[in-house]
């Protein structure tokens, strides 16, 4: 079982992940329509597009972030942990090195352990926010919690595997399956914002950059 989930299934899930995301990006771009959107997508919009992406990647960079400081802090912590822990985890790098001969910097296991706990706090914050903030509650369905659970599951099971709680081998296999489930879910669910964030920021950035005074120096970044 371990051989299968850590071998062929890794290839399958990364395959679906990359091809799926490529399809999502291509169909996003193909779906743009300057007549319906009333935006002249052109090279003139590139600075606005780049600006929008960059400012939204910086905490408190955009007006949208400034308006919601707590959410900004919570979501940035969440995303940094979400990407940072799996990519820089020593164990993942060892396995990558063994199968492909590549690896990069790693964080120590105890650091990863702490960051994972911080991640859990961020997850709880995001859940509470959906419950207590009326504006967000209105938009929230069970689907949103499912998405959050898919993103949190590899961390919960990874934490359990590292600490060897319950039956180690079983938990490890579940951990790997959860990671693969997340990879596969990304192109098919809201998790596709992993790449579509860049697409929609670019689109809106062009719109604002071209139409709403962006060319005349009023460079507010919403």
């Amino acid at each position, binding site marked *: 079982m371990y051989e299968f989930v850590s071998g062929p299934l890794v290839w399958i899930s990364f395959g679906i992940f990359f091809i799926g995301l490529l399809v999502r990006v291509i169909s996003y771009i193909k779906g743009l329509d300057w007549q319906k959107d009333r935006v002249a997508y052109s090279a003139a919009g590139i600075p606005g597009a780049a600006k929008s992406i960059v400012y939204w990647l910086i905490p408190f960079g955009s007006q949208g972030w400034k308006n919601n400081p707590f959410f900004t802090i919570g979501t940035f912590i969440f995303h940094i942990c979400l990407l940072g822990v799996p990519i820089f985890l020593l164990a993942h790098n060892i396995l990558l090195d063994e199968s492909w001969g590549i690896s990069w910097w790693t964080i*120590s*296991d105890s650091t990863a352990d702490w960051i994972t706990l911080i991640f859990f706090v961020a997850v709880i914050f995001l859940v509470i926010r959906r419950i207590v903030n009326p504006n967000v509650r209105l938009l929230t369905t069970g689907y949103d919690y499912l998405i959050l659970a898919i993103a949190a599951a590899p961390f919960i099971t990874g934490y359990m595997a590292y600490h060897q709680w319950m039956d180690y081998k079983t938990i490890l296999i579940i951990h790997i399956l959860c990671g693969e489930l997340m990879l596969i879910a990304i192109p098919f669910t809201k998790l596709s914002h992993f790449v579509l964030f860049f697409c929609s920021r670019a689109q809106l950035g062009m719109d604002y950059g071209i139409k709403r005074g962006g060319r005349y120096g009023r460079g507010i970044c919403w």
Partner: protein
Amino acid sequence: MRKRAVALYAGMGVLISILTFMLMPAYSQEDIVNLADSAFGDRERPAAVFAHEEHNEKAEIEECNVCHHLYRGGNKVDDESSEGTNCSACHYVEGGDTTRPLMKAYHELCKSCHQENKAGPVTCGECHRK
């Protein structure tokens, strides 16, 4: 004066023997139940379980130099072995110009055989048991 010197030497002798006893690595291979290679310094993981004698009996490994190998001029010497020399004497934690780093050396030696034989642990927690 003489007596004090004798007492001093005797005291030092006792101290040194206690120290060597304490600092001596596990002195017989029967005693090895896990490998906590001190070369690593600050460890990330619990020691790898490895009951030397029992393991090699169970796995039916006859030759010591399957693990305790010896290289000369870049080639493995088939009929000699290096037991008694620590892996870390040739494989360095930070890696060296001619030999693979210590952790990689251990993992490769242990895991590749387990994988080939489809027997023995291959996941982190099965070897680095809490």
